[in-house]
């Protein structure tokens, strides 16, 4: 039994805006009988491109019907440009959430809307997500589409990918390829983050930011290590790039504390704050 929210149940039992519009201004159709769900969305617009009427027909499970119904309520009365901003997460949130395995229902809603908007604007839907190579043959899902869902929803497992776009939900023979896509996306993101971090010191910190960051680093990254050896440190002052500290506990007597000062304390502060810092010991 799926764990549906009251709102999903309510929209499923009493779907809004079911039907068809005669001479619609826009039609969006996604899915197929083979996939197990399909949605046809029809829009009527006024001169200012405001959605004045919307109807849908859907073939699918409870949450597919509820997602379609929710989508129509969300876009009714909105300008086309406003409606275009709606994401699959917005649809799920409107319904007080969907079970993980059912997220693809909200994705179908968003895709039908995209298709309808493109249809109205006379565009062929140029979505990078539809291009590329088919990875999941059972549900016809491309590598670009999978990578898009992985990034968009921060997916890390094959199971999650299946929940969001069905890929891998059939014969499972594409699982190694899906894993490779997940790995590649996150490898790239990691590289981007590394570049981002390397650039960080270039961004000039204000004195207040710098002091706060030094304090945080001392508390979180330095003191616990020293304390585990019975020692401690106190931050005395910061003057430009000079950071003045004073040893406490066993560190005071410890002959190795000079080395600790440079190898641990200064290294940590340079890593987390800025690499121009110089740490000095003061008596206090």
């Amino acid at each position, binding site marked *: 039994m799926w764990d549906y929210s009251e709102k999903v149940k309510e929209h499923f039992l009493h779907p809004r805006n079911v039907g068809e519009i005669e001479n619609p201004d826009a039609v969006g159709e996604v899915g197929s009988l*083979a996939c197990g769900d399909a949605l*046809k969305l029809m829009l009527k617009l006024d001169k200012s491109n405001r959605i004045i009427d919307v109807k849908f027909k859907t073939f*699918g499970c409870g949450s597919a019907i509820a997602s379609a119904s929710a989508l129509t309520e969300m876009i009714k009365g909105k300008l086309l440009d406003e409606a275009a901003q709606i994401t699959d997460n917005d649809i799920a949130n409107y319904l007080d959430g969907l079970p993980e395995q059912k997220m693809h229902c909200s994705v179908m809603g968003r895709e039908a809307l995209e298709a309808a908007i493109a249809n109205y604007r006379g565009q062929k839907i140029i979505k990078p997500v539809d291009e590329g190579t088919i990875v999941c043959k059972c549900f016809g899902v491309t590598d670009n589409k999978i990578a898009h869902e992985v990034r968009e929803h921060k997916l890390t497992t094959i199971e999650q990918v299946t929940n969001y776009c069905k890929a891998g939900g059939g014969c499972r023979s594409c699982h190694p390829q899906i894993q490779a896509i997940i790995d590649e996306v996150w490898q790239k993101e990691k590289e981007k983050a590394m570049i981002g971090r390397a650039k960080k010191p270039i961004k000039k910190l204000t004195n207040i930011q710098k002091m706060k960051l030094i304090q945080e680093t001392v508390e979180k990254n330095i003191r616990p290590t020293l304390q585990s050896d019975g020692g401690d440190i106190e931050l005395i002052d910061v003057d430009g790039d000079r950071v003045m500290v004073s040893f406490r506990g066993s560190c005071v007597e410890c002959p190795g504390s000079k080395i600790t000062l440079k190898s641990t304390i200064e290294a940590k502060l340079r890593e987390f704050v800025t690499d121009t810092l110089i740490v000095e010991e003061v008596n206090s």
Partner: protein
Amino acid sequence: MKIVYTDNNATTMVAPEVVEAMLPYFREYYGNPSSMHTFGGQVARKIDIARQQVADLIGASPEEIVFTSCGTESDNAAITGILRANPHKRHIVTSRVEHPAVYNLCKYLAQNGYHVTELGVDSAGMLNLNELADAVREDTAIVSIMYANNETGVIFPIEEIGSIVKQKGSVLHTDAVQAVGKIPLNLSKSTIDLLTLSGHKLHAPKGVGALFIRKGITSSPFIIGGHQEKNRRGGTENVPSIIGLGRACELAKKYIAEEQSRVKQMRDKLESEILKKTPDPRVNGHKTLRLPNTTNMSFEFVEGEAILLLLNEKGICASSGSACTSGSLEPSHVLRAMGVPFTAVHGSVRLSLSRYNTMEEVDYIIEHLPPIIRRLREISPYGRETKLKEQPAQTSART
């Protein structure tokens, strides 16, 4: 709200007589059947009676019955027990429509050095026996073919299958979880070597099952431990449930004629009335070689989970082979193996009755199911008029 329970192939109500029979073994007779004292020892004698009751239902001898924790355990024990006892034989024959307890076990074994031949079925869900005969080889350790299918109720000609397996010198295991208690079985005159049965499918509680191992069949013990179950399955016996299973088998024997008459009449009426009242239906599985309690129907252009949720609103419990109800996205492997079109697999509903159902309940379902299908078809973008256009496109896309 009144609950109309028609999901008896999933599990059944524990018979009130079974509950009564079990209760003393929680309260008074809690002794360990292995103990030397009378207090425990008397329980062992009750287990013997239960073993006899199980044996009587299927025409076996009591020493051929091993109590287990469930059907899945019995299936695993049967297959791996035979494989371990015959380490030089590395080949298994099974079908594409087995319950996951056998289906997934065979997939696992195939990944671990065994050769598995999966036999396909035709559109009625029947095996091709010539194909079976060709599949069984000299190194076939075991053939595991279910007695009756849980989704469609289709009954395989298990004795014919057994003769073929015998001629080829292999061993036949059958998962008869759905058959035991619904159709009469007589293992004293049978080609079956091992047979699985499960308590909760025949009005005993969950958590107890049994494996029939024919005298003379060598199988390795499957839980190593104490001397229980003649060293074949260690572990202190689940006494109350075993007593319950015994009583349930005794009752099943008493009511088996009713399954063939009253239960079958209810199923037949249910099916024919719904077919009459709903456009474009189909019945999945062989019409006659079928369990008396099961009907599996498909309604194209609607989706099974939606049907189940609306039935649920009326208090009617059923199941579906639809992808959305399975927890994965894959629709029923049984219906797919039968070549049922995707459109019909997604819209499949299984109703499975028991002797506790009534004709009033059947009428209640006949009243409520057809409007549910109509309502969902009204929402569906695939109307009847698109049927001819859509279908060939779908089949060609799939092949």
